């Protein structure tokens, strides 16, 4: 199965990998507080952050732009959360697509391709 966001197979044109970033408490050092202290202060659990790194692959310039446009069309303002499902069927609910970043220019070889990262956040609260 392919990775989907809101039921859309945005990433299926090429190989991609999904990384679930660190989870747990956001902890700040008290060393720079007034007065300084040797301990740490917990702020609360960090937001769930998922990065997908992959490559869009197409046979033509226009086909590659279709893939890019389909991706960036999901970068909504304000963000609208949806279900992210990885290629092994793991569900991540309430995820917002917040960033699409090409990792360089389009590579033109046998195929046209573009390496990218896509970032998803589970915001702590809506609206902000």
């Amino acid at each position: 199965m392919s990775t989907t966001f809101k039921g859309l197979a945005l990433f299926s044109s090429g190989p991609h990998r999904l990384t679930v970033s660190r989870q747990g408490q956001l902890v700040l050092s008290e060393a720079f507080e007034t007065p300084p202290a040797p301990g740490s202060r917990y702020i609360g659990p960090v937001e769930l952050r998922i990065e997908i790194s992959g490559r869009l692959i197409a046979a033509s310039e226009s086909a590659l732009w279709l893939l890019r446009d389909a991706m960036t069309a999901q970068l909504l303002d304000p963000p609208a959360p949806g279900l992210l499902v990885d290629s092994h069927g793991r569900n991540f609910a309430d995820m917002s697509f917040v960033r699409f970043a090409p990792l360089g220019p389009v590579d033109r070889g046998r195929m046209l391709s573009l390496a990218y990262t896509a970032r998803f956040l589970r915001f702590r609260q809506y609206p902000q």
Partner: protein
Amino acid sequence: MLIISPREVAFGGAVWTGIAAAVVDRSAAQTIEEFGENGPYAAFADVPRQRVRVRIVQDVVGEEGHTAPGPGQEAVLSITMAQAGRPRSRRLSTKAVILAVEHEVSLKRGSVRTITLAAVSIDGAADPITIESL
């Protein structure tokens, strides 16, 4: 591609003589190898940048001094070669820039000059090497 004893090799207006062989090598200047989440093997590979090098191996007799080719010179390189079993010749052409001119001297082989050239595409998309029948 290996061309043994081509009939004629010309670089711009100069005809290079005593050519033992001409070689066209192609290699990847940049490769892409992408892996997915399904297993250990690459799921996509491509070569978005290629280098095409032409090497001319020339037997050098006598002194040439400053008329010898030098790095940075650009011209159309044409190599005329015979076709086995056919009366017509073929000509390989490419716009090329000389990258290196190196000599090897030995008692056994005498003086051998190797000229290495970068083949340059007209527009970056077309193969820089063209071959035509004469």
